[in-house]
């Protein structure tokens, strides 16, 4: 079985599942038991989506959301990745930060939204910081486990071949930890994507995919809400598959360091 054949088959299977789910929804929406304003039919949702795509508002909402995610995720990687690596390498750093991480990590990022609004007001700063909060921990924890899981045999072999300090770090520890680090990127992105929508509902003003859903509620625009949800799902799925999927294929999958995920 070629990889392409397997890919096409899993694509077909996914399409069948989605079509059945869509048909069930459509049947429910047309059954007459629910108000059309609350449960719009799929053509109505598609129409709303098309209108928003055409007048450019959807693009603008999505751009705002993506900007916040990328900014927050960038900060999270800039802090979580080096800190996780240091925690994995230096016991003193681990001992100092581990209690802090253990206490902060279980707090849902959205629980911070009201506090951050008090401190930073509505808008980009608060939403970006919420994303940063949500993404930092998966990045940090994966980098930390990755560094600790580097095969000691690689370290020995590299040491015997004259590697030390810098070269050991860049040529053995970082590539050796890469399966975990890439998983960290992936999880951090997913967490940010979830967090940004929640944060925008409460803390954004005028733009953002989360905000547009919350705003549409005021006017009973269920079609706009569902259209925005579809866009959120598609962008998240696309990033996860395209960006992180290709990163994985170019590195750890090519090196045989992780098994191919099914589906």
């Amino acid at each position: 079985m070629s990889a392409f054949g397997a890919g096409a088959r899993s694509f077909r299977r996914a399409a069948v599942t989605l079509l059945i789910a869509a048909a069930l929804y459509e049947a429910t929406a047309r059954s007459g038991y629910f108000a059309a304003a609350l449960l719009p039919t799929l053509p109505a949702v598609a129409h709303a989506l098309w209108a928003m795509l055409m007048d450019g508002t959807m693009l603008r909402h999505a751009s705002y959301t993506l900007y916040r995610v990328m900014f927050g995720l960038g900060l999270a990687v800039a802090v979580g990745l080096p800190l996780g690596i240091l925690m994995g390498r230096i016991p003193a750093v681990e001992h100092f930060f581990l209690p802090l991480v253990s206490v902060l990590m279980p707090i849902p990022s959205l629980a911070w939204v009201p506090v951050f609004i008090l401190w930073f007001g509505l808008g980009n700063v608060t939403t970006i910081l919420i994303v940063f909060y949500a993404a930092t921990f998966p990045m940090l924890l994966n980098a930390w486990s990755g560094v600790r899981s580097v095969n000691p045999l690689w370290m020995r072999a590299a040491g015997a071949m004259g590697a030390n300090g810098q070269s050991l770090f860049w040529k053995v520890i970082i590539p050796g930890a890469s399966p975990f680090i890439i998983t960290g990127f992936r999880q951090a992105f997913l967490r940010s994507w979830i967090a940004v929508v929640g944060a925008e509902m409460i803390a954004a003003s005028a733009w953002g995919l989360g905000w547009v859903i919350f705003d549409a509620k005021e006017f009973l625009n269920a079609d706009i809400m569902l259209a925005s949800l579809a866009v959120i799902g598609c962008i998240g799925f696309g990033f996860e598959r395209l960006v992180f999927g290709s990163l994985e294929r170019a590195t750890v999958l090519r090196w045989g360091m992780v098994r191919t995920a099914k589906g």
Partner: protein
Amino acid sequence: MLHIDVDNVSLLYDTPAGRVSGVHEASFGMEESEFLCIVGPSGCGKSTLLNIIAGFLAPTSGEIRIGGKVVTGHGMDRGIVFQDFAQLFPWRTALENVAFGLEMKGVAKAAREEIALKQLQLVKLEKFARSYPHHLSGGMQQRVAIARALAYDPALLLMDEPFAALDAMTRDEMQRLLAEVWRETRKTVIYVTHNVAEAVYLADRVVVMTPHPGTVKTEVPIRLSRPRDPLSVEFLEHQKQLMRHLSEQAAKV
């Protein structure tokens, strides 16, 4: 002056049950270009001794001299091949793995790849230079590991049961290949194994170690002409002699 001098080396471990002797007053010397096998049952301290020679462990007493210089920690005068296939870096191709030591020495990319390719030719893997380790069989991975350990031209090659995890047929093939590589490179080799036939096939001299405490029991020179025939009477005679040394001490325990 001896090329390699293992001089009265002991290692004590601290365990919850008290101090345990891993290696006890082990001594032997080696000439340049000699192939020495260390044979003994598991727990006799042969791998521990190899790790001390490699510089991964510091002896409690005694010392090891390579070309008159006392060993303190690992260094590029020694190349090491481990038993575990996972010793190769999975993120580097076979060629990049072999070139690693030269890269650490600061050899330019073109020059180190040329040397690495020659080393891969030596182990007959030049066709797989651009393959990643996970696409190679266990035997091929060990051949890459041998090429990698030889690439930066160490004075001494240390091998810790490199073929023990291979199936019997591949192992025979590997032993023939190693004997050929040794004939061409004339490296000084210390090879640890529990396989008596392997020792007789490869070694100029066999050091027999015994456990509790791990110490050198005797040395047996193997003066058979090469390439050796494992089915010849002399070969079997040497094998029997080594087996006798090993079973004597097994009977004592």
